[in-house]
């Protein structure tokens, strides 16, 4: 069918493209049409978001304009299939029309885009957004000439590691160019030597990386690879040597793994690559990113914690707190499963939409009705311990329960404590009446018992 003349592309739930390992975004262009001028029967992709990566050209439909799910499919053109990029012609006509970028791709006889296809076809990009077509064309050339996909097509992770790899498989040494002669790995000394080699190579790449920022940027990909590799190594190590490792080592290994895991956003959205779409794209990426930490933290997290985690994952392309806040506040416009919540005190948190305050509320309810809590109340610290959350967050929950009329506060030199609200159980017409089986009754029993 003519409709799928381009390859489909995967997207995340928040509408960000799913990038392949090692794929990095280069440039984003809003409102771009993708037209096949040679074959007008083929459907045109109108006014979508064009993302140029090191591997592909991705076209994503405009989320505001799409109504039917069938038209919302994202498509892609692998740069490997591009055979030629035409220089833009300057003409009088071109002054008034939207700038166009033409390139030639190889296609199958049926007209489907494919690498090394037998026929070729010209695709036109119509850039309707306010952008600089020349700089885009430059980046397009750069990405195409860079042939970054060739490293990935060869597939294996080893291909990118270069000399002095961690080399846990026997076959990997054959791809090493530098070391023709390798001592066989025998016995304890062999293992030690291997460790030493690994150390040296790690040390070398670290030193290289920190020589200057440019070098660091160049090494960023290797670093992520290395991190991933070390993680794998630790993971397999802890399994095979279970009898040797004690708990402490296990703990530190797990911690190390967590650190390494948090290294890896391979293609951070930057102001340079996304331009005007910066906050929108950042917002989507953030929505994808927070899912896992949110789950670990029980569905709710402080905005500050997210800021730290997110920036650590981004590595060098740090974002400002203001950018983060803007990205979060854009979530309202997108269909993402997370939301930004502002407590009355001004504390801001990120929480899953499915996360219910009701659950926390019912846990607080049972906490304050324990005999101890009836007598002496609960502080934010007590609640934090029981709920397993930060004291500041616990206090927010307590204040929320208070505003619902379930708790009362007690401010004294002893501190700020919360009690179950017994006012509701007291009859205003008879102050001495105690209803049986109410919280007032329970409170009296608990306090009398303590005397």
């Amino acid at each position: 069918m003519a409709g799928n003349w381009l390859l489909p592309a995967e997207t995340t739930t928040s509408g960000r493209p799913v990038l392949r390992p090692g794929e990095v975004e280069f440039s984003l262009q809003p409102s771009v049409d993708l037209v096949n001028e040679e074959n007008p029967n083929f459907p045109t992709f109108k006014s979508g978001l064009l993302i140029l990566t090191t591997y592909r050209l991705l076209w994503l439909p405009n989320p505001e304009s799409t109504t039917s799910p069938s038209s919302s499919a994202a498509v892609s053109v692998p740069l490997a299939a591009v055979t030629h990029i035409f220089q833009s012609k300057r003409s009088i006509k071109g002054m008034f029309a939207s700038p166009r970028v033409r390139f030639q791709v190889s296609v199958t006889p049926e007209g489907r885009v494919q690498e090394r296809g037998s026929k070729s076809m010209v695709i036109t990009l119509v850039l309707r957004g306010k952008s600089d077509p020349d700089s885009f064309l430059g980046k397009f050339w750069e990405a195409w000439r860079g042939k970054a996909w060739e490293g990935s097509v060869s597939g294996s992770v080893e291909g990118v590691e270069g000399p002095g790899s961690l080399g846990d498989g026997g076959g990997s040494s054959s791809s090493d160019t530098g070391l023709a002669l390798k001592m066989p790995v025998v016995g304890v000394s062999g293992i030690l030597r291997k460790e030493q080699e690994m150390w040296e190579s790690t040390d070398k790449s670290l030193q290289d990386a920190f020589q200057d920022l440019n070098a660091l940027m160049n090494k960023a990909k290797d670093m992520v690879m290395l991190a991933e590799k070390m993680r794998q190594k630790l993971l397999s190590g802890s399994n095979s040597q279970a009898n040797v490792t004690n708990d402490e080592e296990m703990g530190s290994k797990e911690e190390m793994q967590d650190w390494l895991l948090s290294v890896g956003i391979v293609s951070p959205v930057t102001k340079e690559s996304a331009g005007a779409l910066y906050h929108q794209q950042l917002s989507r990426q953030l929505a994808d990113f927070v899912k896992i930490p949110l789950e670990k933290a029980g569905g709710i997290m402080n905005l500050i914690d997210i800021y730290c985690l997110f920036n650590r994952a981004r590595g060098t392309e740090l974002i400002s707190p203001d950018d983060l806040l803007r990205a979060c506040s854009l979530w309202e416009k997108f269909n993402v499963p997370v939301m930004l919540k502002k407590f009355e005190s001004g504390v801001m948190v990120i929480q899953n939409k499915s996360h219910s305050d009701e659950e926390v509320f019912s846990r607080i309810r049972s906490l304050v009705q324990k005999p101890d809590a009836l007598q002496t109340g609960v502080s934010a610290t007590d609640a934090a311990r029981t709920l397993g959350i930060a004291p500041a967050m616990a206090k927010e929950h307590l204040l929320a329960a208070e505003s619902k009329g379930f708790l009362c506060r007690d401010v004294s030199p002893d501190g700020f404590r919360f009690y179950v609200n017994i006012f509701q159980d007291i009859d205003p017409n008879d102050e001495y009446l105690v209803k049986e089986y109410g919280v007032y009754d329970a409170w009296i029993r608990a306090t009398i018992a303590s005397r």
Partner: protein
Amino acid sequence: MQKLGELKLPHFFNYPPYFTLQPVRETREKQIQLWKELILDYCRTQKIFVVGLEEDFALFSNPAIERSLNHEARVAFLSAIVSDGRAEWMDKGHRRCLILWHRIQDWADIILRFVKDNGLEDSVMTVEEIRSGIESRGTDIHGMDRTVLMRALKLLENKGKLAIFKGTSTDDEGVKFSV
């Protein structure tokens, strides 16, 4: 159950949040309601007419739980009584509050009943006699605040139930009943 003077204190007097002004509206309304009742009850049993905010007032602190009302809370509770017409601020700074545990109208009725019970319908008494004389002993009138008494008497004067006449000093003020 604890007692303060003649007054049996309700259980919630030992509830620490009772001594912190609650910020949530519904809870606060309930709390204020309970305080109003307790303050009026306490003043009635102790025959207290004036509550000074900066003076010690036994009801405003509970040594058993080491809690006491702060100034803001005291003002809030007394103001609530004032707006119910059961108390009046005696100064602009809201430092002293006159508690009318009987309304002026009720005081007037009590005085009339006292006059009838003692057969004083046409007699003459000094104001001081009404407050501290032998006849009023055992009634609410005994030892009542002079300001409140004068206002109740004025109310009765306006209704033609008595006439107030002045002597040489305030102590000499007298009343001629004509019930």
